[in-house]
């Protein structure tokens, strides 16, 4: 699940930033979520990242999970304030939706889909 959350965050930043490579880890924020199930937690996770961009202009490069249950987490997220000279926003995301979302177990690990409203 930790890898799924990290990869979902990476995919999200690829979609919203002009160049998502080379994000630095100059500051740390604690993120806490409590959801009804794992599917919802993944959606809540992306919505947390949406909020951090809109509210604080923060983007994260690395995540350390201090606690991670089937529907709750406490994470230390390390990242930086958006610097338009290095990381320009290319998309405004309203939210991660429940629409057609899933998490499924495959032989290669967890597979998930989330659709963003942009």
């Amino acid at each position, binding site marked *: 699940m930790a890898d799924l959350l990290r990869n979902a965050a990476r995919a999200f930043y690829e979609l919203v930033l002009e160049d998502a490579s080379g994000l630095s880890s100059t500051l740390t924020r604690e993120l806490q979520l409590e959801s*009804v199930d794992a599917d919802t937690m993944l959606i809540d996770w992306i919505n947390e990242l949406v*909020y951090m*961009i*809109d*509210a604080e202009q923060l983007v994260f490069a690395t995540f350390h999970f201090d606690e991670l249950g089937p529907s709750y987490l406490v994470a230390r997220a390390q990242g930086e304030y958006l610097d338009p000279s290095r990381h320009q*926003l290319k998309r*405004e995301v309203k*939210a991660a939706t*429940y629409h057609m979302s899933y998490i499924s177990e495959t032989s290669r690990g967890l597979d998930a889909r989330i659709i963003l*409203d942009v």
Partner: protein
Amino acid sequence: MATLQKIDDYRWEIPSSYKSGMRVPGLVYANESMIEAIQSDESLEQVANVAFLPGIVGRSLAMPDIHWGYGFPIGGVAATRVSDGVVSPGGVGYDINCGVRLLRTNLDKTDVLPRMSQLIERLYRNVPSGVGSKGRLHPPKGQIQRLLVEGARWAVRNGFGTSDDLEATEDGGCIDGADPAAVSERALTRGVPQAGSLGAGNHFLEIQAVQKIFDEEAASVMGIDHDGQVLVLIHTGSRGLGHQVCTDYLKTMERAVATYGISLPDRQLACAPVESHEGQQYLSAMRCAANYAWCNRQHIAHWVREAFIEVFGGNAERLGMWQIYDVAHNIAKVETHTIEGRQTRLCVHRKGATRAFPPGHPALCKTYRGIGQPVLIPGDMGRYSYVAVGTARAMDETFGSTCHGAGRLLSRGASRKAARGQDIATSLQQRSISVRTGDLGALAEEASHAYKDVTDVVDVIHGAGICRKVAKAEPLGVIKG
């Protein structure tokens, strides 16, 4: 969809027997060729899914600009009884009170075209737009609650526009029952810095010229009097504040679905009884977001007037820059309609649909009592837009609702693949349509090929009698958010 039944040239029914759990049939407004295209995605399934909502009355409706949404289709209308029905944030969407406002002017396109680049630059500077744009408004901390309660009235009280603007706005630009206590800190943190901005996505500001008048009497009441007359269309909503209200309350509704034992075919339709604590809290917060959006469009209209004055001189009065109307097209309203001969209070969800009240309706201002409510139907930025009026038939059939725009044919991703933003800009310039955008990619997402032809959409609603077309306008210049 095998069970789709043609009623007439403009109406198709999805019988309630299509899916076990549908409480009412679905009704789709479309012509023969549109209905084929509509069936290429899952939007008709969504019309059927909406029919599961407890307390839904009449039919689950889809306008001809229907396309695949999240839970509800975009272009969907659903009315639920207040007494025992539900309210669903998905039936409003993330951009609460996304809507359009239309201003008229005394100018002719021959006055404006020679100064178009100057005008577009001035508008671009006056109205913040684009991805991540911050607003020009900066409301003082102590005033934010007032803004959420008073909407466009707050803006006018502070010198942005006139009381005539409020008269020519749905609900006077201020919906009752807004309670800021129902809005989370997160929604405020996200939304307040964006107050007074156009935003991105499909939002835009367009300078138009009247191309054709279909109904001279109604057009004249609106101040539309000749071909070539310049109009200004503003399309934006409640920015991050509305987005966060929807996100917050979808979570609330997820829990409410379990609490109230509601069975739904799609999680995105999560809802709660209208009269429950959760339902009332959502409506209170949604109304704050709706008021924020009206306040936003009110400020933008003021800055548009300032830009015109800077370029053409005089003042707003001399330029004849009065507001024709402002409509919401993502909203849930408590309204009274006649159901089986009885006056019934309903929660009408319009998700990508416009209110279209008929002549004589008490909710209309005096100016429009005689002709019906103006309905503003933007097309895509390369073609044209329409102005129409509401009808009695819409009141009978669609809870006084009609379409809201052209409706997407291609997703944003597919549209980007189909054409480059630079090519779209060049093609628009070749047709003498000036474009200003901070993001060429976004231009490709909103190009004509991504949308249905709005004329086809308007012909269906006009033919079906759920609004009556008044005038058509072509774009002269566009600021793309």
